Protein backbone atom coordinates (compact mmCIF):
# COMPACT_ATOMS: atom_id res chain seq x y z
CA UNK A 1 0.00 0.00 0.00
CA UNK A 2 1.27 3.47 -0.76
CA UNK A 3 2.70 5.62 1.98
CA UNK A 4 2.12 9.06 0.54
CA UNK A 5 -1.16 10.23 -0.90
CA UNK A 6 -1.38 13.59 -2.63
CA UNK A 7 -4.43 15.80 -2.82
CA UNK A 8 -5.79 17.04 -5.14
CA UNK A 9 -5.07 14.62 -7.96
CA UNK A 10 -5.15 17.50 -10.42
CA UNK A 11 -5.06 21.27 -10.11
CA UNK A 12 -5.51 23.96 -12.74
CA UNK A 13 -4.70 27.60 -11.98
CA UNK A 14 -3.87 30.86 -13.72
CA UNK A 15 -0.34 32.13 -13.96
CA UNK A 16 0.48 34.31 -10.97
CA UNK A 17 -1.79 32.43 -8.59
CA UNK A 18 -0.56 30.27 -5.75
CA UNK A 19 -0.78 26.48 -5.92
CA UNK A 20 -1.18 24.34 -2.84
CA UNK A 21 -0.78 20.57 -2.82
CA UNK A 22 -1.24 18.32 0.16
CA UNK A 23 0.25 14.98 1.12
CA UNK A 24 -0.80 12.54 3.80
CA UNK A 25 1.19 9.55 4.94
CA UNK A 26 0.63 6.61 7.21
CA UNK A 27 3.69 5.72 9.25
CA UNK A 28 6.39 7.58 11.19
CA UNK A 29 8.97 9.23 9.01
CA UNK A 30 12.52 10.55 9.16
CA UNK A 31 11.95 13.04 6.39
CA UNK A 32 9.51 14.03 3.68
CA UNK A 33 10.50 15.24 0.24
CA UNK A 34 8.79 16.79 -2.73
CA UNK A 35 9.75 16.00 -6.30
CA UNK A 36 8.61 17.43 -9.63
CA UNK A 37 8.23 15.54 -12.88
CA UNK A 38 7.87 17.25 -16.21
CA UNK A 39 6.17 15.17 -18.87
CA UNK A 40 8.46 12.49 -20.23
CA UNK A 41 11.29 13.36 -17.89
CA UNK A 42 12.64 11.98 -14.65
CA UNK A 43 11.71 13.23 -11.21
CA UNK A 44 13.64 16.18 -9.87
CA UNK A 45 14.18 16.73 -6.16
CA UNK A 46 12.70 20.03 -4.94
CA UNK A 47 12.92 20.18 -1.18
CA UNK A 48 13.38 18.00 1.91
CA UNK A 49 11.90 18.61 5.34
CA UNK A 50 12.92 16.59 8.38
CA UNK A 51 10.53 15.23 10.97
CA UNK A 52 11.70 17.78 13.56
CA UNK A 53 11.05 20.71 11.22
CA UNK A 54 7.70 22.41 10.71
CA UNK A 55 8.33 24.68 7.75
CA UNK A 56 10.91 25.15 5.08
CA UNK A 57 11.35 27.59 2.19
CA UNK A 58 13.22 27.41 -1.07
CA UNK A 59 12.66 30.21 -3.55
CA UNK A 60 8.95 30.22 -4.42
CA UNK A 61 8.40 26.93 -2.59
CA UNK A 62 7.12 26.62 0.94
CA UNK A 63 6.72 23.25 2.59
CA UNK A 64 5.03 22.56 5.90
CA UNK A 65 5.02 19.36 7.91
CA UNK A 66 2.60 18.34 10.64
CA UNK A 67 3.76 15.05 12.10
CA UNK A 68 0.79 14.84 14.48
CA UNK A 69 -1.54 14.80 11.48
CA UNK A 70 0.92 12.92 9.28
CA UNK A 71 0.52 15.51 6.57
CA UNK A 72 2.52 17.98 4.53
CA UNK A 73 1.73 20.76 2.11
CA UNK A 74 3.65 22.27 -0.77
CA UNK A 75 2.90 25.85 -1.71
CA UNK A 76 4.15 27.33 -4.95
CA UNK A 77 3.76 31.09 -4.95
CA UNK A 78 3.32 33.27 -8.03
CA UNK A 79 3.05 30.27 -10.29
CA UNK A 80 4.40 30.28 -13.84
CA UNK A 81 3.49 28.26 -16.90
CA UNK A 82 6.83 26.47 -16.47
CA UNK A 83 5.59 25.09 -13.14
CA UNK A 84 3.20 22.84 -15.06
CA UNK A 85 4.24 19.34 -14.00
CA UNK A 86 3.37 16.49 -11.67
CA UNK A 87 4.40 16.88 -8.06
CA UNK A 88 5.09 13.92 -5.78
CA UNK A 89 5.61 13.70 -2.08
CA UNK A 90 7.96 11.00 -0.84
CA UNK A 91 8.75 9.73 2.63
CA UNK A 92 11.67 7.96 4.20
CA UNK A 93 11.45 6.10 7.49
CA UNK A 94 14.05 6.23 10.25
CA UNK A 95 16.96 3.91 9.63
CA UNK A 96 15.75 3.11 6.14
CA UNK A 97 16.97 3.76 2.66
CA UNK A 98 13.70 3.22 0.88
CA UNK A 99 11.86 6.31 -0.33
CA UNK A 100 8.13 5.80 -0.82
CA UNK A 101 6.22 7.92 -3.31
CA UNK A 102 2.58 8.79 -3.75
CA UNK A 103 0.55 9.03 -6.94
CA UNK A 104 1.25 12.73 -7.45
CA UNK A 105 -0.68 15.91 -8.15
CA UNK A 106 -0.87 17.11 -11.72
CA UNK A 107 -0.53 20.88 -11.79
CA UNK A 108 -1.48 22.88 -14.87
CA UNK A 109 -0.65 26.57 -14.91
CA UNK A 110 -2.44 28.52 -17.62
CA UNK A 111 -0.60 31.45 -19.17
Amino acid sequence: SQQGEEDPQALSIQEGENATMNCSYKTSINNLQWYRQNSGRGLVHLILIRSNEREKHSGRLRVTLDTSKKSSSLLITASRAADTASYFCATMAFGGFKTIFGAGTRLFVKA
Partner: protein
Amino acid sequence: EAGVTQFPSHSVIEKGQTVTLRCDPISGHDNLYWYRRVMGKEIKFLLHFVKESKQDESGMPNNRFLAERTGGTYSTLKVQPAELEDSGVYFCASSHRTKSEKLFFGSGTQLSVL
Protein backbone atom coordinates in the same frame (compact mmCIF):
# COMPACT_ATOMS: atom_id res chain seq x y z
CA GLU B 1 28.48 15.55 -14.31
CA ALA B 2 26.36 13.09 -16.27
CA GLY B 3 22.98 12.28 -14.81
CA VAL B 4 21.23 8.95 -14.47
CA THR B 5 20.68 7.43 -17.89
CA GLN B 6 18.24 4.74 -18.83
CA PHE B 7 18.00 2.67 -21.97
CA PRO B 8 15.84 2.18 -23.91
CA SER B 9 13.49 5.12 -23.48
CA HIS B 10 10.64 3.10 -24.97
CA SER B 11 10.09 -0.60 -25.52
CA VAL B 12 7.13 -2.31 -27.10
CA ILE B 13 7.06 -6.09 -26.84
CA GLU B 14 4.56 -8.90 -27.05
CA LYS B 15 3.35 -10.90 -24.12
CA GLY B 16 5.75 -13.74 -23.41
CA GLN B 17 8.81 -11.97 -24.74
CA THR B 18 11.81 -10.87 -22.71
CA VAL B 19 12.91 -7.31 -22.15
CA THR B 20 16.00 -5.97 -20.44
CA LEU B 21 16.15 -2.43 -19.13
CA ARG B 22 19.43 -0.75 -18.32
CA CYS B 23 20.31 1.99 -15.88
CA ASP B 24 23.59 3.85 -15.55
CA PRO B 25 23.65 5.74 -12.25
CA ILE B 26 25.63 8.84 -11.50
CA SER B 27 29.29 7.89 -11.14
CA GLY B 28 30.18 7.24 -7.52
CA HIS B 29 26.60 6.70 -6.35
CA ASP B 30 26.50 3.50 -4.33
CA ASN B 31 22.73 3.44 -3.98
CA LEU B 32 20.64 2.45 -6.97
CA TYR B 33 16.88 2.05 -6.99
CA TRP B 34 14.29 0.76 -9.41
CA TYR B 35 10.74 2.09 -9.35
CA ARG B 36 7.69 1.52 -11.54
CA ARG B 37 4.69 3.68 -12.29
CA VAL B 38 1.62 2.08 -13.75
CA MET B 39 -1.20 4.06 -15.40
CA GLY B 40 -0.90 7.26 -13.33
CA LYS B 41 -0.81 5.44 -10.03
CA GLU B 42 1.83 5.79 -7.34
CA ILE B 43 5.49 5.38 -8.14
CA LYS B 44 6.09 2.00 -6.62
CA PHE B 45 9.40 0.88 -5.15
CA LEU B 46 10.84 -2.28 -6.67
CA LEU B 47 14.30 -2.73 -5.20
CA HIS B 48 17.44 -1.11 -3.84
CA PHE B 49 21.09 -1.93 -4.48
CA VAL B 50 24.01 -0.81 -2.39
CA LYS B 51 26.90 -1.24 -4.75
CA GLU B 52 26.41 -4.75 -6.15
CA SER B 53 24.34 -6.08 -3.25
CA LYS B 54 20.57 -6.19 -3.12
CA GLN B 55 19.65 -4.29 0.03
CA ASP B 56 15.90 -4.51 -0.32
CA GLU B 57 13.95 -6.30 -3.02
CA SER B 58 10.62 -6.32 -1.23
CA GLY B 59 8.88 -4.51 -4.07
CA MET B 60 9.71 -6.95 -6.84
CA PRO B 61 6.36 -8.25 -8.12
CA ASN B 62 7.34 -11.86 -8.78
CA ASN B 63 10.11 -14.10 -10.01
CA ARG B 64 9.66 -12.95 -13.60
CA PHE B 65 11.65 -9.89 -12.64
CA LEU B 66 15.41 -10.15 -12.20
CA ALA B 67 17.65 -7.22 -11.31
CA GLU B 68 21.42 -7.26 -11.36
CA ARG B 69 24.18 -4.80 -10.70
CA THR B 70 27.39 -6.56 -11.52
CA GLY B 71 30.48 -4.70 -10.35
CA GLY B 72 28.37 -2.12 -8.60
CA THR B 73 28.10 0.16 -11.63
CA TYR B 74 25.22 -0.09 -14.07
CA SER B 75 22.13 -2.17 -13.38
CA THR B 76 19.80 -4.21 -15.52
CA LEU B 77 16.21 -5.19 -14.91
CA LYS B 78 15.00 -8.16 -16.91
CA VAL B 79 11.39 -9.16 -17.29
CA GLN B 80 10.95 -12.72 -18.54
CA PRO B 81 8.38 -13.61 -19.71
CA ALA B 82 6.59 -10.26 -19.90
CA GLU B 83 2.89 -10.04 -19.07
CA LEU B 84 0.35 -7.35 -19.94
CA GLU B 85 0.32 -6.00 -16.38
CA ASP B 86 4.05 -5.30 -16.56
CA SER B 87 3.37 -2.28 -18.76
CA GLY B 88 4.33 1.02 -17.21
CA VAL B 89 7.21 3.43 -16.78
CA TYR B 90 10.28 2.01 -15.08
CA PHE B 91 12.41 4.57 -13.32
CA CYS B 92 15.91 4.19 -12.04
CA ALA B 93 17.33 6.48 -9.37
CA SER B 94 20.65 6.75 -7.62
CA SER B 95 21.98 8.49 -4.55
CA HIS B 96 25.27 9.14 -2.89
CA ARG B 97 26.44 6.79 -0.14
CA THR B 98 26.46 9.45 2.58
CA LYS B 99 23.92 11.93 1.18
CA SER B 100 21.48 9.18 0.48
CA GLU B 101 18.19 11.00 0.99
CA LYS B 102 18.19 12.93 -2.27
CA LEU B 103 17.46 10.73 -5.26
CA PHE B 104 18.53 11.50 -8.80
CA PHE B 105 16.21 9.99 -11.38
CA GLY B 106 16.60 8.88 -14.94
CA SER B 107 13.97 9.73 -17.53
CA GLY B 108 12.49 6.26 -17.34
CA THR B 109 11.73 3.45 -19.75
CA GLN B 110 8.17 3.29 -21.06
CA LEU B 111 7.40 -0.41 -21.39
CA SER B 112 4.35 -1.51 -23.34
CA VAL B 113 3.46 -5.19 -23.35
CA LEU B 114 0.91 -6.06 -26.04
